[in-house]
């Protein structure tokens, strides 16, 4: 079985991506609280929804990146061949 090596750079990228997703999600919750005149305590009480949304966002972004990666590789190869 081949070992898959996740480089420190990749780890850092993924953690930063996840943090960005969480920040976006948290910001959306803050916006929603203002927009719907909800109590500020929902910043805490809705944290489960915020985390869930952040994970969903991260997953969506990952799927998008996995779809883009082969295209990127093809483009790079064709550029090299030229």
């Amino acid at each position: 079985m081949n070992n898959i090596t996740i480089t420190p750079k990749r780890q850092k990228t993924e953690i930063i991506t996840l943090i960005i997703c969480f920040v976006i999600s948290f910001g959306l919750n803050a916006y929603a609280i203002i927009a719907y005149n909800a109590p500020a305590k929902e910043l805490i009480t809705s944290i489960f929804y915020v985390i869930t949304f952040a994970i969903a966002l991260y997953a969506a972004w990952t799927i998008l990146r996995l779809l883009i990666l082969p295209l990127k590789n093809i483009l790079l190869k064709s550029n090299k061949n030229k």
Partner: protein
Amino acid sequence: MEYSNTISRREFLKELGILGAGILATTSPWLSAFGEISHTNNERCRIGLIGPGSRGQFLLSFLKKNPKVEIAAFADIYQPSLDEALKAVPTAKAYKDYRKLLDDKSIDAVVIATPLNTHCQIALDAFDAGKNVFCEKTIGYSMEDCLKMYNKHLETNKIFFSGQQRLFDPRYIKAMAMVHDGVFGPVNCVHAYWNRNGDWRRPVPSPELERHINWRLYKEYSKGLMTELACHQLQVGTWALGKLPQKVMGHGAITFWKDGREVYDNINCIYTFDNGEMMTWGSDISNKFYGLEEQILGNLGTIEPERGKYYFENIDPAPAFLQMINEWENKLFGAMPFAGTSWAPETANENHGEYILGKRPETDGTSLNLDAFVEAVVTNKQPERIAEEGYYASLLCLLGHEAITSGTILDFPNEFKIDYPSYNTKAIKES
């Protein structure tokens, strides 16, 4: 003997939680039956059970556990029922004729669980024989029978209870205290229903016993769903509204179980009150999806005591984050021609309500109803309103049945009105 009467009473009072004695005295005055329970530990009550069939044996299972009760005798015309009862209490005497049981001077009280058409004569004979009477509901086959029984109770000054177990069910007691305290606003409507999916028949060992065993299905013995099921629930409506209806209308038919029965299998009745309030009662025994419930509707909330829950009209909105997501969904799917706006889910929180007692219901009040009867017998004190509640519950069923069979809107007949003081409560005053 293993018994938990004191514990169950303690649990009972605990379940009623923060309700004060004043509120209970107003909303459920019959609970005064338990007022002297700790002083009567050495008292004994000798009971004769007339009609130890299925319901009778159910009652027997509770009576047997009460250390203040001695089951002295059984009476039934059906030997297998007597044999079953004697298996449970071998020391009891058994009679084919209930009058022999009534001749036994040592018996203090009788529990009547026979077919409906026999209640009246047995109860009258029992009162005349000096016995205290617990009679299963509906108490009488006709309104005249009910009045005769009630008047005989007054005349002989003997204890008279009916098997309206909801009067002793902690869920109902607490719910009614909340209703009468105005927590749910004025009650304008009560919807009660009892749906089943079954033919309501019992197995019959030989054809000649069909009418005796399946007596609920034949007019000669019973008035069917109205007298066997409605009596449980109509009393809840008058308890909640704190008054009696003025008019009754209804419709009934045999729509599904066309098997030779003579009583309806599909019924709906409307009872209307002086201020326009309504109580409906319906039963269809070809579909059990909605089961049974009494929905008590106030402008501030709803109670479903059978489920043991209440629900307020105004509930907190969903968290802002979910509202926002939901709005996005509405915009996205609402704009799609294949989906349409009706596809978009609602944003409101589902209203799961609260448990009346803070937990799932555990008892239906039957054991406490019987305990209260025993206490009333040993203290020789008739609790307030208990006979009247049973009387009127029965009358409402019979009146509903009469409205159905006559196809007319009936006024509550003045000649059958007895003293029934209205509940002097906040919600009723406000309405």
